[in-house]
């Protein structure tokens, strides 16, 4: 794998050949077809909040800027609303690409420090593994405790609770079938 350095307005980034092929293969998306029409970015309601716009992410992938992409804030903002993919004239489903990038960032330990979305996903999956379902009350509480923001939405939580919308049912029974799915997934990863 060859490496090099690319000068971007944001600074120098390292590039690796092979990154484009890897992301294209894992996401199943024809990333090489992108000709920068920017329809993805025009329709994205989160463009202004990220460090790179969707079309820039694609370009960086084509360049092979692995670290810049996998450490970017933008990939964690994407809510997979699929607006971009629907409108792409080259049939690139960008939400699949964003999912692949998040998965790669997690697998390679490149999630930016303080990225709470990754923590949220981790807690979410732990709940499923534990009891087969997600109790929203428990998940919200654990997330708030972990991020030290317990009081932020306290009023909201109380209003939901009062309406019977955050039931705390003691349903701590393990679900063997779901455990088995998690074990199979772990097994696949080790193969």
């Amino acid at each position, binding site marked *: 794998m060859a490496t090099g350095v690319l000068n971007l307005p944001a600074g120098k980034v390292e590039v690796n050949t092979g990154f484009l092929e890897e992301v294209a293969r894992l996401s199943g998306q024809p990333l090489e077809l992108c000709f920068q029409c920017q329809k993805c970015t025009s329709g994205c309601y989160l463009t202004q909040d990220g460090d790179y716009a969707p079309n820039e992410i694609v370009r960086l992938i084509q360049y092979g800027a692995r670290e810049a992409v996998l450490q970017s804030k933008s990939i964690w903002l994407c809510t997979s609303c699929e607006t971009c993919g*629907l409108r792409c004239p080259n049939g690139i489903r960008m939400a699949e690409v964003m999912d692949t990038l998040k998965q790669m960032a997690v697998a390679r330990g490149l999630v930016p420090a303080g990225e709470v979305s990754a923590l949220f996903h981790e807690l979410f999956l732990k709940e*499923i593994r534990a009891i087969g*379902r997600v109790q*929203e009350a428990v998940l919200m509480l654990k997330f708030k405790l972990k991020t030290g923001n317990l009081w932020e939405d306290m009023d909201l939580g109380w209003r939901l609770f009062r*309406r019977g919308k955050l039931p705390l049912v003691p349903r701590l029974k393990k679900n063997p079938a779901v455990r088995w799915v998690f074990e*199979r997934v772990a097994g696949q990863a080790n193969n």
Partner: protein
Amino acid sequence: MQYSYYPGCSLEATGVEYNLSTRAVAAALGVELVELPGWTCCGSSSAHAVNKDLALGLAAHNIALAQEHGRDLVVPCAACYTRLSKADYQMRHDPQERVRGEKLAGFTYTGEITVYSFLEVVKDHIGTEMIARAVQRPLTGLKVACYYGCLLVRPPEVRPFDRAEDPVSLDEVVAALGAEPVSWSYKTTCCGAGLSLTRPAVVKRQVDRLLAAAREAGAEALVTACPLCQNNLEMRRPATESLPVFYFTELIGLALGLGEARAWLKKHLVDPLNLLQKLSLAV
């Protein structure tokens, strides 16, 4: 008509009134929903972001259960519907994905069952003509903005039951109830619910935008088919904003004259009863 019913985790908590109204409306319209025994979380909205195998495996496990019970699967939650219909699509159309899903969930995929959203069942299996005939109390004068959200009709190859850019199924259903769907441009714009806990400021901006657009179009309420949208549009709004957000099943229940509708509406964070009283539609 008989289906397996997959409520999903949100419908047991923040979306409880969607669960209650879906069950009541289905029963009133002659649709039997049998809760899928032993259903588990579909993995939304986290598995697909972190692990490709978990995303397919958790959804495939529920498809395996539905297959075992031999009935098509009905899913009211747009987020669960997304994950389950996607997994089904992958296994149906890609032999490699089928093998992967079968291994992860330990079953043999037959493709005999179909995953439907409850909106699709209402619109296409029951049909707006039958719904219009069942209406006892037409929702005359109620101007609503139909909000499909991002997950219900996209991507089009997986969810071909409505148009991806300008869907009309909800509009047709509420029109059959006697309400007036307004024309607006934000039908499928994401509300940001997936970031509601992690980036509330971003989500507040988006909710503001959507509610303002609905008002500008002349709507007095929004209608959704997604518990994440409904909650997000109620929770992340300014305290002064009073535009109610209904589930489409609640509006059907109201129009059918179901007495329990009041109890569903009482669960809302934003009280819709004032508006209904103003229009003499309250139950």
